């Protein structure tokens, strides 16, 4: 059976059917993105932190905007050339459109990747240190011989499962363990199931719901784990996520950070920020910070004598968020023309910075309130950023797939019924323009404002 009205208009609607269909679909898409834009407004109005402005790479966002505009033009030119039966040009422009989709996603993935490897560490006084973790961040805990496992007879959130939660964190070879009865075992699924059954049987005898298993390793163990992989730790004990407790010694829980920014906007007195303590960035960086801050404040006062600097988000960022682009502080001469030359030199320094030309600080665990890479965990801005751009990216991929189908698999229709294919391309193009339309709002909202 043929689908009716693929080329000619249906008399009552005045449109070919696919067009009505795509507009109904786009209407539902508006609702989908509308809900997310509404969430953006809600999160921004309710944000209790400094909403990031110009924090993403504006250059890459700008290039991507141009790429989408260009592709919107090419998809229309493809349609127009098909209408004129200029098949070569039609194929060329459609191919260019798909190429643009690839370029857009490529640039987007570069942006995403840089966010995944970039970290923000909130210190206990509210200062944010931003930068990279050259060695990752892991806790080292050693000298462990005794493990205490707790097994539950009923389903519980925390129930001993050493095979999944303890063994993978052991550094080096996994040694044998001695049970309480003195038997030497290799800890694996089967041997643990047996231990578990014994412990629960014993617990039942004494009328308890949970039993304990004590294991002694034949050689001392060292554990190394990301903080998310364990439940908690103190100087002499570490608790794994399955509730297993290891007795031993905390070896290292310091975080090495290559600092590329110090954000003191949430600190009451920026000069007293923890970042400037002698064990971290120290006096010389503090001086550099004060020079930049005072310069920004003087400039703001001169330019806008009647405005309240407290209310200018961009000024607050300029004055209280020090960007660090060299391993040692620049000489404190931030006045006049010199400053401009210096700023330019710093920009050129960017390439070197990528190779680790940043001051390194070793942060004490007690000073860290929270840390995260630039992902939804960091704050609501990055949550909505990844949601919106991720969904938009999926639409770009979907659009490219549809247009790619018309280009590569619709050869038969191109020969037999080019007018119908033109309508298909038009409908695919309408979707493509909608994707561009969404980006027209996303770019300023996420990158610029």
């Amino acid at each position, binding site marked *: 059976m043929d689908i009716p009205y693929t080329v000619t208009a249906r008399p009552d*609607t*005045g*449109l070919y059917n696919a*067009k*009505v269909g795509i*507009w*109904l679909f786009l*209407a539902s898409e*508006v*609702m989908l993105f*509308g*809900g997310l*834009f*509404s969430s953006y*407004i*809600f999160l921004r*109005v*309710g944000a209790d932190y400094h909403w990031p*402005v*110009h924090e993403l790479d*504006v250059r890459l966002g*700008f290039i991507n*905007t*141009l790429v989408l*505009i*260009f592709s*919107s*033009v090419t998809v*229309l*030119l493809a349609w*127009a050339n098909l*209408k*004129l039966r200029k098949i070569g040009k039609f194929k060329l422009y459609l191919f260019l459109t798909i190429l643009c989709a690839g370029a857009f996603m490529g640039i987007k993935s570069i942006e995403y990747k840089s966010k995944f490897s970039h970290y923000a560490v909130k210190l206990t006084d509210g200062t944010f240190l931003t930068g990279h973790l050259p060695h990752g961040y892991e806790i080292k805990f050693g000298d462990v011989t005794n493990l205490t496992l707790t097994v539950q007879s009923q389903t519980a959130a925390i129930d001993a499962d050493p095979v999944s939660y303890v063994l993978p964190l052991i550094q080096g070879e996994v040694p044998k363990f001695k049970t309480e009865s003195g038997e030497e075992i290799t800890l694996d699924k089967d041997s643990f199931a047996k231990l578990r059954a014994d412990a629960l049987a014993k617990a039942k005898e004494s009328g308890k719901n949970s039993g304990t298993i004590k294991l002694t390793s034949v050689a001392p163990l060292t554990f190394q784990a990301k903080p998310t992989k364990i439940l908690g730790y103190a100087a002499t004990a570490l608790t794994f996520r399955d509730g297993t407790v290891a007795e031993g010694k905390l070896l290292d829980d310091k975080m090495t950070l290559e600092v590329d920014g110090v954000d003191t906007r949430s600190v009451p007195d920026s000069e007293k920020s923890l970042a400037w303590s002698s064990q971290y960035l120290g006096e010389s960086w503090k001086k550099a910070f004060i020079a930049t801050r005072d310069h920004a404040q003087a400039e703001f006062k001169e*330019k*806008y004598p009647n*405005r309240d600097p407290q*209310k*200018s*988000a*961009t*000024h607050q960022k300029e004055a209280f968020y020090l960007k660090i682009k060299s391993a040692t502080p620049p000489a404190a001469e931030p006045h006049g023309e010199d400053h401009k030359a210096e700023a330019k030199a710093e920009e050129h320094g960017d390439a070197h910075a990528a190779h680790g030309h940043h001051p390194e600080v070793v942060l004490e665990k007690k000073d860290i309130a929270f840390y995260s890479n630039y992902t939804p965990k960091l704050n609501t801005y990055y949550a909505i950023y990844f949601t919106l751009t991720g969904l938009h990216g999926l639409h770009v991929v979907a659009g490219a797939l549809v247009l790619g189908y018309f280009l590569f698999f619709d050869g038969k229709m191109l020969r037999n019924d080019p007018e119908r294919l033109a309508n298909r391309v038009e409908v695919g*193009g*309408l979707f493509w*323009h*909608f994707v*561009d*339309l969404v980006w*027209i*709002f996303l*770019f*300023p909202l996420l990158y*610029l*404002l």
Partner: protein
Amino acid sequence: MADSPEEIYKSIKKIKLIGWVLAVFTVITVGLSYVELPTHSLNMLVGMIVAAFKAALVALIFMHLNHEAKLIYKILAFTAAFAIALFFLFVFSASDPLVFSGFYESNQ
């Protein structure tokens, strides 16, 4: 709908022109975002006006909503109304509905 060859040639010219206009306005958006207006809300307002203008160009010219069948305008009228309603949902976050329901009193 542009169907005769002359009309299509004409529309190709128009498409390219609008493409350039959109690119220029993208530059303007970026530039304006670095201008320090009296309040940041004003920056937001200006930025959104420029974005709305660009969006209108895309919708009217690229998606040819400047001459479309009546049915599509009917669909979009509903869409626009509901979308605008969505943007104002955040006002409900200004008050805590649990206060009015007596939730806190009964839990004291």
